[in-house]
């Protein structure tokens, strides 16, 4: 009950995009917001403009070598390459990078974004084609001082709630997500702190903590070193009383911050498969060992 409520609240707050997999699980993608996408697209267009100038520069250099200009056929080839590369650059820059770099143009790479399919599968070429051929409509008005404004795309981004899909995304069934590559942390953030583990062993947990409390303890343990000590104390003091009650640590002599870290340590050491029986919990705490028969 509690967890269902918690997840509903989470769903309202977060813009995460949920994808159900056939293996009876849901996984989430954090949706990229309009600002980071605009930044990415500006970087890309700046690159396109830069490359266009580069092409013209090369052309200028080639034609200033008079020996080459004299060769009529060669100069024709240069013009052909100029126009053809402009055509490719204008219309296939995004497609090229999104196909060969698996959904990331240089701008998206810089902003840590990636295009994925809405059903969580890898992108098909057709999706990328649709996505990028519709781009001119999203870019409308096409150019203000050489840069497209993406007014239509920006307006369309709010069409479907929080997924921030521009028209091309809607037509192709794609979505842009923030890419996170979390590192695997093998040990608890509090591991190796003698005082904390001593405290945690002295705790006598009675009731299994709620999802919100568990989450809060996890987040606090992971991030407390980034907080100002006074702020950490203030946060910890606010929840000291319920934590003491839940974790059976009423009489324990310790600072609130230490209490929270120790409680978090307990979470790592209790046997979750045995939680329904409070007797076994008490035994575990009595024996003073964190690990039971597993």
């Amino acid at each position, binding site marked *: 009950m509690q967890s269902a409520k918690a997840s509903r609240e989470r769903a309202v707050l977060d813009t995460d995009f949920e994808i159900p997999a056939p293996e009876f699980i849901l996984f989430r993608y954090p949706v990229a917001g309009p600002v980071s996408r605009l930044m990415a697209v500006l970087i890309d267009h700046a690159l396109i403009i830069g490359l266009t100038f580069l092409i013209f520069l090369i052309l200028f250099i080639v034609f200033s070598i008079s020996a080459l200009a004299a060769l009529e056929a060669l100069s024709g080839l240069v013009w052909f390459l100029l126009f053809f590369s*402009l055509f490719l650059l204008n219309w296939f820059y995004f497609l090229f990078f999104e196909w060969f770099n698996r959904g990331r143009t240089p701008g998206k790479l810089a902003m840590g974004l990636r295009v994925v399919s809405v059903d969580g599968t*890898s992108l098909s070429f057709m999706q990328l084609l649709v996505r990028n051929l519709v781009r001119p409509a999203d870019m409308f008005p096409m150019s203000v001082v050489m840069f497209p404004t993406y007014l239509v795309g920006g307006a369309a981004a709010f069409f479907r709630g929080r997924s921030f899909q521009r028209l091309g995304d809607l037509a192709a069934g794609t979505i842009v997500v923030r890419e996170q590559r979390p590192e695997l942390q093998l040990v608890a953030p509090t591991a190796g702190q003698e005082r904390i583990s001593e405290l945690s062993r002295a705790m006598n947990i009675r009731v299994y903590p709620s999802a919100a409390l568990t989450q809060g303890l996890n987040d606090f343990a*992971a991030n407390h070193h980034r907080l100002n000590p006074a702020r950490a104390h203030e946060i910890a003091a606010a929840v000291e009383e319920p934590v003491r009650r839940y974790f059976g640590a009423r009489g324990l002599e310790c600072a609130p911050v230490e209490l929270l870290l120790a409680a978090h340590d307990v979470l790592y050491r209790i046997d979750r498969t045995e939680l329904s029986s409070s007797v076994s919990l008490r035994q575990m705490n009595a024996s003073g060992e964190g690990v039971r028969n597993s």
Partner: protein
Amino acid sequence: MTPAKFIQRRTPAWQALEELLERLESRSEAHLSPDDFLRFGRLYRAACTDLSLSSAWRLPRHMQLYLEDLVSRSHAHLYAYQDRGGWQQIKDFFLDRVPRTVFRDGYVRICVLAFYLPFFFSMFLGYHSKPFVIALVGEAQMEYYVEMHSGEREDQTAGGAIAGTGFYVWNNAGLAILTFGVGILGGVLSLVMVLFNSVFLGAILGHLLNSPAADNILSWIPGHGPLELTAIAFAGAAGLRVGFSFVAPGGRRRLRALREEAAEAVPVLIVAVVMLIAAAFLEATLAPAQMPHSTKFMVGGVTLLLMIMYFGLYGGFRSYIQRRTEALELQTTRRSARPGYS
């Protein structure tokens, strides 16, 4: 099992999956052995289980994020689209999908008619009535066109032809993609662009044919005209389809309709771009060449015939076959649905 033990015990499997994923993501699928693929499936399913355990047991957030990342990346590879087929795919696209789609596409018919009817009508008006052209184009512009095409044409060199191809591809194919792109805004803009091009081009051509520039125009247009003009209509049709799917989704949800129709429209646009590249080549090589008008008309006639054969006969044949197969499949499923009667 305690979370600490759980993490410790499962880590080797996660790291093995991560290592496989990195190899998959660097696009060397071919270098993976069959054993690796089997192992990948097993490791992925195990990671899925671990992910649900980690949320059921409320493991630390960073654990869940890590597993979610592993699972989502694996999922993308496991349930990938099978369309990295190279040449076979391109062959199927141009020899089956494109002609079939174009033949059956009602929007293509609408746009071809919407282009050619006003085109010839406006050409007729432009030929006979000067005020019509002035009202449409403006007097200065009209004189400019006559001036531009009246002069003696200099002989074309090979280099100039190559350069011209590049220019026409850049200009015309870019315009076609734009015509498609703006179509998503209700389809009206695509249709407007098709109609505008047809009336405008028709009027100017009509007027030029009734002016001193007639001879030059007859030597310039006929070679590449059929390909280029039809391609404009095709690009408009693709845009119209996408835009209209949103306006009239026909019993589907709008976004679903949009997605389906866009996939249907893209082949039409691609063939339009290919046609424009071919037309650009013809325009750059054939149009300025000094040869009798009849030769150029013949080349234009051949491209027209090829289009009719490719889209009309071949495409019609393909879609006939497709309909037959569908009907046969329907029959067999009906038969198997009533086992008592068979």
